[in-house]
């Protein structure tokens, strides 16, 4: 077979599936955002009315604000925690493999289960957290009924669930650093902190960029564990943009066009932030 054609033939089945189930629906989503439909069969062209409705909708802005708070906190915490854990797990300590497995375990859990379990733990009256706090005389905070506390809980659970995955990426990055850099720094008399700050962190920058981009995308897409943990409550405090889209797409009254417009905005936001991040880091690396 012609060697120029053969590679394309090998990837063709995958590209077909990818095209039909990912690319086409994604492109069609832009199209649907210009229509109004309550049943997925009859579509009325409305131009930019769905976007205008989103801009005028207080609930959309509330979800957008909650999303920004969640994503910023999630990305910062997950990046810092994964670097810290990776450095710890990179040490020659006893049971290192077991620790790595333990930190990775939450990644394997179903997000629905994660939401339900943490929901029970943080229940104000009968939850484990408040039973312990009550036992030591610290009262019964309404973890899931106070807007600020619920946001903190959602961020904490998000970080707990995903930090294991990013730790593994950071660990791979750490292990890719040539040990001679550290040896040279030690010979020059650098302390442990100086070696970490001036050798490890700069050399870990490409990996950190990957973690920041991936965790940012994950943060923007957060939905399933939040839905089972708080349902977006109390009073919309933890309703993020994906839940807002979900509610308009799949809960009565169905508004496919409005939900699609929300997805387009989400796509553009993630795409834009990823591009900025990518270009900024590329320039820094080049400099």
């Amino acid at each position, binding site marked *: 077979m012609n060697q120029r054609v053969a590679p394309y033939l090998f990837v063709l089945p995958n590209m077909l599936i990818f095209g039909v189930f990912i690319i086409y629906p994604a492109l069609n989503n832009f199209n649907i955002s210009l229509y109004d439909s309550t049943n997925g069969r*009859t579509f009325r062209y409305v131009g930019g009315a769905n976007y205008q409705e989103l801009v005028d909708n207080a609930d959309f802005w509330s979800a957008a604000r909650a999303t920004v708070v969640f994503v910023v906190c999630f990305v910062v915490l997950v990046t810092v925690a994964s670097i810290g854990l990776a450095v710890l797990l990179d040490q020659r300590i006893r049971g290192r493999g077991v620790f790595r497995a333990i930190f990775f375990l939450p990644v394997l859990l179903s997000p629905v289960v994660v939401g339900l379990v943490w929901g029970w733990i943080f229940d104000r009256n009968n939850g484990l957290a408040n039973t312990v706090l009550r036992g030591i005389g610290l009262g019964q905070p309404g973890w899931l009924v106070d807007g600020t506390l619920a946001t903190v809980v959602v961020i904490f659970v998000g970080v707990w669930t995903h930090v294991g995955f990013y730790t593994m990426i950071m660990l791979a990055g750490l292990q890719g650093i040539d040990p001679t850099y550290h040896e040279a720094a030690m010979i020059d008399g650098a302390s442990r902190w100086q070696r970490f700050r001036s050798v490890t962190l700069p050399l870990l920058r490409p990996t950190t960029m990957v973690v920041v981009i991936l965790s940012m995308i994950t943060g923007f897409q957060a939905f399933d564990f939040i839905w089972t943990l708080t349902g977006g409550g109390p009073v919309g405090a933890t309703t993020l943009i994906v839940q807002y889209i979900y509610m308009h797409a799949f809960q009565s009254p169905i508004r496919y066009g409005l939900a699609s417009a929300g997805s387009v905005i989400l796509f553009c936001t993630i795409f834009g932030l990823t591009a900025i991040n990518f270009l900024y880091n590329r320039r820094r690396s080049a400099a």
Partner: protein
Amino acid sequence: MRVPTPTVAAAALAAAMLAACSPGTGSDTGTAQQANDKKITYVYFTDGPDEQATRNLISGFEKETGIQVDLQIVPFDNLEQTLQARLSGNNAPDVARLSDIDPFRDDLLDLNKYQKSALDGVFVDGAKSYTTGKNGELLAVPSDLTMNGPLINVDQFKKANVPLPDEQKPWTWTEMVAAAKKVQQVNKTQYAIAMDVSGHRFATMLSEFGTDYFTADGKVGLDQTKALAAIKEFADLNNSGAMPKDVWLQAGSKYKGANDVFLAGQVPVYISGNWQVSAFAKDAKFTWAAAPNACQERCGGYPGGKFMVSFKQSKHQALAAQFIAWMNSAKSQTQMCQQAAFLPTRKDLISSGITYPSRSTDMNVFLSEIQKTPADTFANNYSPAFSDTANAARDELAKVLAGKDTPEQAVTVIRAAAQKALEGVK
């Protein structure tokens, strides 16, 4: 970064192709070509004990008529989405059980075309305007009726020496709250009264305080003074700890029942409805009973229910209509009600009553509440704008409990939501 010209061209072409075509195929509401086989599909969601009762009835229907019924059970949360997808694929089921027919109104079969004598004018009058199409078609059959009302923990009432409510002389809201608080105090339960997180359940309270989301003639209702009194009472009960405020705040945008609080013995009065009877008969570890609704300005509960429909896309329209008529005959509805602890929708059965094999007293409490329930509540519940308004009321009540809105603001917001919902269905 320089983007190659062919890439730009390909992207522009793809965008142009997509923009040029409408994503829908248009609604095919014409009559489907009819098939000759004797097999129909029935898409169903279950509330629990009704599934076996439905299967029993289907067996009887299959034996009697020789028509096979393929019962397809889907989760309630996915029902609308599933049916819309099937309608899009021209693969609608022959029969479906729905709680809200509005999203499908243009797709529903006129059952009068096949079963007018068996179905027309037979069912509860309150549902008539909802189930009737623009040109007088019978689009749906109310297959079971629900009635909201309180369930009480009899053991806790007895321990507190508080008399049980009398059906002949129903308690007022004030008396019910006082009784519940006394029982709570003696039994040291967490709460006195619990209510499901639902705008439909709150409508019971609104009705008892003398108002409703809509007037009987379909305009925005919600009398300012009466609605304010109901919302203030609701907020006071929650803020004082008599009601579990956490249940309303913690539910977010999801429905949440308070049945687990009642079953755990942590609340002596639980405002829910007759659909709990079967489950409580099985799960409750204490003596409980259905109680008459509290009367404030008005008595009675609040209706709800499910419907059986067929679709214009059905390839077995006559058989589907025959099946719906058979399932809702007096004999079948009686059997269904007895086995699943449902309330009938047929006028003849509501008048004559039904003898339930178990928990008959409780079921008859709910049955007698139907007679006391004001007619406008039926018009409200069967209004196409009800669902959106009730959901808005649920969200707004949570805002009041979180201290984000005042009860006065809540009345305004719910009225606006009712107006918007009404405009949406016009």
